[in-house]
């Protein structure tokens, strides 16, 4: 532990501008992996020499040489009226997966899960999925209509809705197509692209049941509702009345203490806990109560799961038990041998996470991870596990269990039933391979 800052021989890629022009040329010429191997050796050697010199000095320059922030006046309050992350965090942003879609208005931007802590997704990093672009809707001109099998078809303004008794609940939202690119084989490098259509927020709003009660919904005949958006696509999805009656479906305007962001449905969206994101209709303008499902475009052309027998499963909605290790994860390099905290996220659309097991040997042996509080129903649960990396190759996996007793399956188990072409609802165990150089990459273990 002594003189850790100066420890010689440390395996460290020195990513802070350690690439010279010659190095860049070498990468382009010889290929990235060859370069990395030699760069590690070079970087280690380069660090070793000054380390010896530093060890003989009085200590760490980061301590001995006072930095500007310790020796000058800082910025005043409200210099940033709406605060933004540090400039050093600028790499952690929503990103598209190149080539996935052709049109930005009908596309996906993924949440950088590799950089998140705890369970709450910062609102600015909440993943985006739009079907016909997004708008910043004037809340004064937004309306919610209730119609169909109700005694009184009604209209509410945002003023009306925000006066009603409100609740706040923490839930995950995951796109049904999350990890969909990986059904057949490894396709993307990092957890941002493999699992980043996942976010978890505190939502504030009114239970839809309260509003349907006001309108005199016919709960006997009306066993389905249709939710419809106010955007160009006016996206529609069928939702079971049982979920509405349980009180968990919310007509929400708040997210993480402020109003919803425009990309996430400002000023009003449906919250359907445990159900895939497409049913959380954004810019919500209408709820219809009916006695049959609607087979809308996003439940008859998309969001249908192709099975090996050529049949499509329709109205698949529940997001089943799933987990992923976010640190370390694909596209990263471990800084050093020694202690590491394996950390990840687990969630289930059926209820609470009860257990997460972690393997570092590709699934031969498992250890039970710590579940950090809070552990909430249909919310992300953070798990952690102590791990001492001995510098040898490893394959990291996590396996979650929920309170319905459902255990996350392997790729082999999942494909045996569902094949490789269903696109949606891939909740397989994720594997990250760690090489002796410390580089982590995406692999699939059956």
């Amino acid at each position: 532990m002594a003189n850790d800052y100066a420890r010689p021989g440390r395996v460290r890629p020195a990513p802070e501008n350690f690439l010279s022009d010659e190095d860049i040329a070498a990468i382009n010429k010889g290929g990235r992996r060859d370069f990395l191997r030699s760069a590690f050796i070079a970087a280690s050697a380069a660090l070793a020499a000054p380390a010896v010199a530093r060890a003989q000095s009085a200590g760490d320059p980061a301590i001995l040489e006072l930095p500007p922030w310790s020796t000058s006046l800082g910025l005043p309050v409200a210099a940033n009226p709406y605060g933004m992350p540090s400039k050093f965090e600028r790499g952690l942003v929503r990103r598209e997966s190149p080539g996935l879609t052709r049109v930005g208005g009908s596309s996906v931007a993924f949440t950088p899960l590799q950089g998140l802590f705890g369970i709450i997704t910062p609102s600015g990093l909440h993943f985006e999925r739009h079907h016909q672009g997004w708008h910043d809707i004037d809340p004064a001109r937004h309306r919610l209509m209730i119609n169909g099998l109700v005694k009184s078809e009604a209209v509410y303004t945002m003023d009306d809705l925000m006066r009603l008794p409100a609740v706040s609940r923490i839930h995950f939202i995951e796109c049904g197509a999350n990890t969909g690119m990986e059904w057949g084989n490894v396709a993307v490098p990092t957890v941002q692209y493999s699992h980043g259509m996942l976010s978890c927020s505190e939502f504030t709003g009114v239970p839809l049941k309260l509003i349907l009660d006001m309108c005199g919904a016919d709960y006997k005949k009306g066993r389905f509702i249709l939710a419809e958006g106010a955007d160009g696509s006016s996206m529609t999805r069928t939702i079971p009345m049982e979920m509405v009656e349980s009180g968990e479906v919310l007509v929400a305007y708040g997210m993480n203490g402020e109003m919803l962001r425009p990309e996430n449905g400002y000023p009003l969206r449906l919250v359907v806990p445990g159900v895939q994101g497409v049913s959380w209709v954004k810019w919500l303008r209408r709820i219809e109560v009916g006695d049959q499902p609607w087979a809308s475009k996003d439940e008859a052309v998309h969001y249908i799961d192709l099975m090996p027998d050529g049949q499509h499963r329709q109205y698949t909605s529940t997001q089943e038990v799933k987990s992923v290790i976010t640190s370390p994860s694909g596209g990263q390099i471990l800084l050093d041998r020694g202690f590491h905290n394996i950390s990840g996220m687990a969630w289930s659309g059926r209820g609470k996470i009860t257990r997460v097991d972690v393997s570092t040997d590709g699934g031969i042996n498992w250890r039970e991870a710590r579940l950090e509080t809070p552990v909430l129903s249909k919310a992300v649960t953070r798990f952690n596990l102590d791990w001492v990396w001995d510098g040898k190759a490893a394959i990291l996996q996590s396996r979650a269990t929920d309170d319905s007793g459902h255990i996350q399956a392997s790729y082999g188990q999942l494909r045996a039933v569902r094949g490789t072409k269903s696109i949606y609802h891939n909740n397989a165990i994720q594997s990250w391979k760690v090489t002796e150089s410390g580089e982590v990459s995406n692999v699939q273990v059956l």
Partner: protein
Amino acid sequence: MSRFYKTLMTILLVSGASAAFAFDRYPGLGRLATPAEVTAWDIDVRPDFTGLPQGSGNVDDGMVLWEAKCASCHGIFGESNEVFTPLVGGTRASDIESGHVAALIDNSFPQRSTFMKVATVSTLFDYIKRAMPWTEPKSLSDDDVYALLAYLLNLAEVVPADFVLTHENIADVQARMPNRNGMTTDHGMWPGASAANGGIGNGGKPDVNGDACMSNCKTEVLVASALPDYAQDAHGNLAEQNRPVGPVRGVSSGDQAEAGASVDHSGATAVVALVNAKGCMACHGLANKIVGPGYNEVLAKYKDRADAEAYLIGKVTSGGQGVWGAVPMPPQGHLSDDEARRIVQWVLSGAQAQ
């Protein structure tokens, strides 16, 4: 909604009987919807054709509308894979007989077209009516939707070329949909009541379950798939997508040289945002053809023409067809004159990404 409730509502509004409802518990909040309001928004069409408006349209009229409003994204024959997955293709006459699309099993068609998947013709009417065309949703009349759907059904060889689709014969068309028997709800992912209890599916029973084994669970680890180099490099420099502090760093990947070469081309960033926002990039790539020519191709063709700016502004605002192929460019009426001018100047200055 049922006609009964609409009638009831009208009576109640006329008689001022709203106080009879449960609005009492939260007085002052919400109001009754008028029949006109409900009609304006309740445009959904169910598989049993509840909600289907009366009307008709034929294949020929549909073709004219299609080429003007739809072909730029979906191709003249609904076959294009350039912007969206194909609407038409991969179905056969035998599928219309069986109601099962054989290509979903024998993989004889490279994509899954809309007609290979959709089981319900109501879905197509509903979606075209509510969301199409892409840049002008809800602008089509009911008869326009009938005509466009008739044209699509003819392309998919579900109806003949002289067919007139109406609210009265759409149920006959349903009986010929190629994948009408291709859906199953026998699964555990419906979060409501089971089919046996008036809902959908098996009541939430999972089809796949993992195992809880903790030690010596297998004798070997079979890595079935690993990340190809190109897939890592295709996502840019991962070193810049990770935090510069903590237990890990991102690996360096992608085109390093590109990262260092970002230069601001006066105002170009704003124009890039504009062409993205206005949907131009759906059909034109910076350096590649998508549906229409890449901006680089436009530049190469017109850079020496003296009136290039005025000519191209005219093409943008009025549309055109034939210069770059058969697929027409629709008039871009949603652009102001100033926006069209800025975009054309940006194209003629080299269409830099930033």
